[in-house]
């Protein structure tokens, strides 16, 4: 380590250090002195690289997917986005060529059911998870005493670390059957036959399907949204809340008029994080969706999502000697990636609009 200092173009002493000989400074002091003057360019270079990496990774991912999916895009065309048939064709039959791309005779892929399933399960998950998470975060920061809030907060964060396969297993073996036996029949028998609620009527199945998938997804994203929301609530400065109390507002009114608006854009961000996770969640959904490539006729119907289909079909796709099934899965993956990006951009617009009041999250006013 002693060689670090030799030949360094820094002066032997720093201003204000009283001209002590360099040798009497500790190694860290000497290292700091050497770094001074070089740290600014190094810092800038590091920042530049760091800012490019995520963008580059996104572009790279989309490009690779697009290249892999290109044969499927050419053959499937717009039908891929609107059709609901999913036929790999005969692996032993003739190979035909469309637009110069070889694929098994009789193969036809339409992913609308997968796209719809992805959006439906994610929407259900968000509808359930956002109120639950915000309520939990609010209770943790505002209502519960510290000795209770701390272990509960820890439990929520631990929940975020449970592998999704375990959540899926629990959903398939315990939650799904329980709901199908004790909850779904009751709900289906009691909701009125009106728009939207109509989808809660009809046959309730065996516990796999759309609603179970949505609930399992909600369970997986609650920790993400709740722990972010808790940190946001904790950042709201006390003074505006006191001001609201001093005006005679009740606790509920303080939450409604001050705390929630204060963190609104941050909550949207937390919701996007959760939504991203829900859109892409694979194995848990594959285990509780029923894995049927169709649009669920009601809330209890079997269905599947893009991610779940990719993981469950990858093995059999490899048996397609023309590689067309694999390309189709890549196309499905590309659609999923695009959905995620579009959702992100849209949500960012929402943030921009809702933070019109010029409130940086957690700013001290």
């Amino acid at each position, binding site marked *: 380590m002693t060689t670090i200092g030799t030949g360094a173009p820094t002066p032997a002493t720093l201003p204000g250090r009283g001209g002590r000989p360099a040798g009497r400074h500790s190694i860290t002091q000497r290292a700091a002195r050497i770094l001074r003057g070089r740290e600014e360019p190094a810092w800038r270079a590091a920042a530049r690289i760091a800012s490019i990496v995520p963008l580059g990774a996104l572009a790279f991912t989309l490009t690779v997917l697009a290249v892999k999916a290109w044969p499927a895009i050419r053959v499937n065309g717009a039908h891929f986005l609107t059709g609901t048939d999913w036929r790999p064709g005969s692996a032993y039959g003739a190979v035909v060529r469309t637009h110069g791309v070889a694929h098994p005779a009789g193969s036809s892929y339409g992913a609308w059911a997968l796209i719809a399933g992805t959006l439906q399960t994610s929407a259900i998950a968000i509808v359930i998870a956002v109120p639950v998470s915000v309520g939990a975060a609010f209770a943790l920061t505002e209502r519960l005493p510290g000795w209770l809030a701390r272990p509960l907060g820890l439990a929520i964060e631990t929940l975020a670390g449970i592998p999704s396969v375990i959540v899926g297993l629990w959903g398939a073996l315990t939650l799904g059957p329980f709901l199908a036996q004790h909850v779904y029949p009751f709900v289906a028998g009691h909701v009125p036959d009106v728009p939207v609620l109509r989808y809660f009527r009809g046959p309730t199945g065996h516990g796999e399907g759309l609603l179970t998938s949505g609930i399992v997804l909600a369970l997986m994203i609650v920790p993400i949204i709740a722990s972010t929301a808790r940190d946001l609530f904790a950042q709201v400065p006390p003074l505006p809340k006191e001001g*609201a109390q001093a005006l005679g507002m009740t606790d509920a009114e303080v939450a409604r008029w001050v705390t929630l608006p204060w963190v609104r854009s941050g909550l949207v961000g937390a919701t996007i994080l959760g939504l991203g996770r829900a859109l892409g969640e694979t194995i848990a959904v594959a285990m509780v969706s029923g894995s049927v490539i169709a649009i669920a006729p009601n809330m209890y119907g079997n269905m599947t999502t893009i991610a779940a289909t990719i993981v469950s079909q990858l093995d059999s796709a490899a048996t397609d000697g023309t590689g067309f099934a694999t390309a189709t899965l890549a196309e499905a993956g590309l659609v999923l990636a695009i959905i995620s990006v579009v959702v992100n951009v849209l949500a960012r617009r929402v943030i921009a609009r809702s933070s019109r009041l010029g409130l940086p999250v957690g700013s001290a006013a």
Partner: protein
Amino acid sequence: MAWPASSVPTRAAGPESPLLDPVLQALDPDRDRPADILHATGLTLGFGSKTVVADIDAAFPRGTITALIGPTGSGKSTFLRTLNRMNDKVPGFRRHGDVRLDGSSIFTPDQDLLGLRRRVGMLFQRPNPFPMSIRDNVVAGVRAHRIARGKQLDVVAEQRLSQVGLWDAVKDRLRDSPFRLSGGQQQLLCLARALAVGPEVLLLDEPTSSLDPVSTETVENLLRSLTPALTLVIVTHNLAQARRLSHRTMFLFDGALVEHGTTEQIFESPREEHTQRYVTGRIG
């Protein structure tokens, strides 16, 4: 903690009543109410095992401005915040003694806390606008108490913003964020918000300590114009401000009410040596 009715001083009997003319007294709508709108008796406040202020007896005559002065840590803010029970939720807060608003205790179990705070408003050390538009800030309390709604809210907003002299500056951006206003304007906005619910007493916790001298003067003139309709209690570290603004001054030191009298008396002929040393700048 009921106060014997006979000993409640009425305005007619109050030695420092601003209304001495018997005809005016007869016309005074408050004539049957106590002359002191707020009255603290034997008030001891603390957090946990620490006592912040001890055994304070103080009366606040209706329609006057009382300044609370004293060095940091003397318990001024704790005392002030007890007057509308803002300390209730602070962990470990304890209280002995009583505060009466118009003769009745504010600490009785059936006291409507929200109603109390509507009558006893508060302005804080730093502006604390809510994360909503300027107009919504002004009417936030009015909405919460359902005093007005719909179109009336716009009337209230204009009225209160005009009252604090902010209307011309913000009338074209009522829907904008209050956080782009200057600090002084934000504090005026908070004052308009506090006034909108029609309080009888306004508690001010160093309301100008974060403002520049010009904004401070604006706020002071405004506060002066609020009396005698309102009763003001103001905590301030600025002795000149206490002298300019207040009718009465209370000097707190180390948790005790050292001296309480007219502002002129406290500053010109203090009875206690401590007061003398503080108001002449030799301690604190």
